[in-house]
């Protein structure tokens, strides 16, 4: 018991974060009827919880969840993998950088979400179009971080290795790559959350399954509590993905002074 008390004094957020949650939920619960808002416009937390329970008991829901998770995961791996390859090439080969960088910059300004209808036309209503959408949307933040990260290596460290006789590849393996890790993880962190976004947007445009599809179905049926329940599931999904990346980062980049993050 004593240890717990010391922990809370050093990290008050452990108590304050859940406290804020409880207060907001309670306020929401009682404010909705108090202000005379209809339940079907803004359901109370207790109703959302009920809807969530109903969905979790439904095998169909788990099918939707699985589809969205797989779409996001495949898209993430595809986008991040492509970004690693292209980013490494751009950061290491001057000619490739000069040739492709203008295209990278140009494509980066395209709102990727706007491409979703196109992908549905090209790749159909199945999972492929969503995987492509997730890949494209997670590709750019990763690419920027790969390029920036592989360039971030400290010149003194590179010089040190050179003095001891290291060649270009040794410098890459021993300094450039480890120096890039904080950036790579920033890219992975943004990328995994973006890939879920990409999958859901793809499902909005045209799909027969997935949480995005389910979201639209509940919307058509005016089942607002059900919509909220799906949103809760999507948020939890994003949180889990984020914490998996964070966990790996803490293990691998324990030495970093600070983790600089580059956005999309």
């Amino acid at each position, binding site marked *: 018991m004593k240890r717990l008390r010391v922990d809370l004094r050093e990290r008050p957020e452990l108590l304050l974060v859940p406290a804020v949650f409880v207060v907001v939920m309670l306020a929401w619960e009682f404010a909705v009827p108090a202000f005379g808002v209809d339940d079907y416009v803004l359901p109370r937390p207790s109703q959302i919880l009920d809807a969530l329970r109903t969905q979790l008991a439904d095998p169909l829901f788990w099918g939707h969840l699985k589809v969205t998770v797989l779409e996001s995961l495949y898209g993430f791996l595809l986008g991040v993998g492509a970004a690693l390859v292209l980013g490494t090439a751009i950061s290491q080969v001057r000619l490739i950088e000069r040739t492709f960088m203008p295209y990278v910059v140009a494509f980066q300004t395209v709102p990727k979400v706007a491409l979703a209808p196109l992908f549905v036309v090209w790749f159909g209503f199945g999972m492929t179009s969503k995987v492509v959408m997730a890949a494209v949307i997670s590709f750019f933040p990763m690419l920027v971080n790969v390029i920036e990260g592989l360039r971030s290596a400290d010149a003194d460290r590179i010089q040190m290795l050179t003095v*001891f006789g290291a060649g270009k590849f040794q410098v890459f393996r*021993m300094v450039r790559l480890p120096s890039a890790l904080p950036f790579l993880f920033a890219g992975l962190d943004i990328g995994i959350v973006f890939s879920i976004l990409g999958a859901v947007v793809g499902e909005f445009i045209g799909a027969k399954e997935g949480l995005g599809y389910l979201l639209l179905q509940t919307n058509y049926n005016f089942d607002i509590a059900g919509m909220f329940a799906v949103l809760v599931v999507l948020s939890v999904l994003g949180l889990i993905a984020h914490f998996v990346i964070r966990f790996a980062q803490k293990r691998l980049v324990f030495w970093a002074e600070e983790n600089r993050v580059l956005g999309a």
Partner: protein
Amino acid sequence: MDEDRWIEVDGLHKIYRPRRSRPTHALSDITFTVRRGEFVSVVGPSGCGKTTLLKILAGIVPRSEGTVRVADRDVTGPLPEVGMVFQAATLLPWRTILQNVMVPVEVRKLDTRVYRERAKRLLGMVGLDGFEGTYPHELSGGMQQRAGICRALVHDPAVLLMDEPFGALDAMTREYMNVELLRIWRESGQTVVFVTHSIPEAVFLSDRVVVLSPRPGRIAEIVDIGLDRPRALAAMASDRAGVHVARIRAHFSIAGVIDS
């Protein structure tokens, strides 16, 4: 091999030619030799090219003109006979102290098992035994720089180049490190070229001190120190040391440059 000319610099010029600005004459007609096992310091005001000289010896900056030979080999790139200690310790933060010390062994693909023992012995010699598995950020600046010295010595180089290695340390730690360095040098027997802007430090450590003039760096004088070895810090209070310090300092006062 000529042990009297273990390091030979003859008629060395270095001119930097940046693409968009005027060329800079960094070093002009530098000629000196270092005997095997000798401790030579290079002093000079900021920007006189002393670090450039060291980088040319290390083979990472090309010379513009002249001869540079180390351990009977023409310097055209980094030589395995050379170890270097840098201004900052420049340890790799993701490697343990032992892994950091092993960097030259890894890069040169030497026998890891043999040299790991040597690395541990060196760490013991500088008082870092028990720290093999710790990471750089857990050590003080002085301890990091001692690990940096071990790294420079691990592959048993014939020549040790040191670029203001104690410049970032506080005065007390610096004096202590100077004494430590002389002890390590006595035990390992390397030929040392030590760059510093501290005249007392150069006098305390060296057999000879090469004095460079302000830019373009040329040799103003080479001073024979001739204090008895082994030296304790008390040697710095001696009249002879004082005379050397004053003599070297005079070069910079005439030039109107004040430096330590």
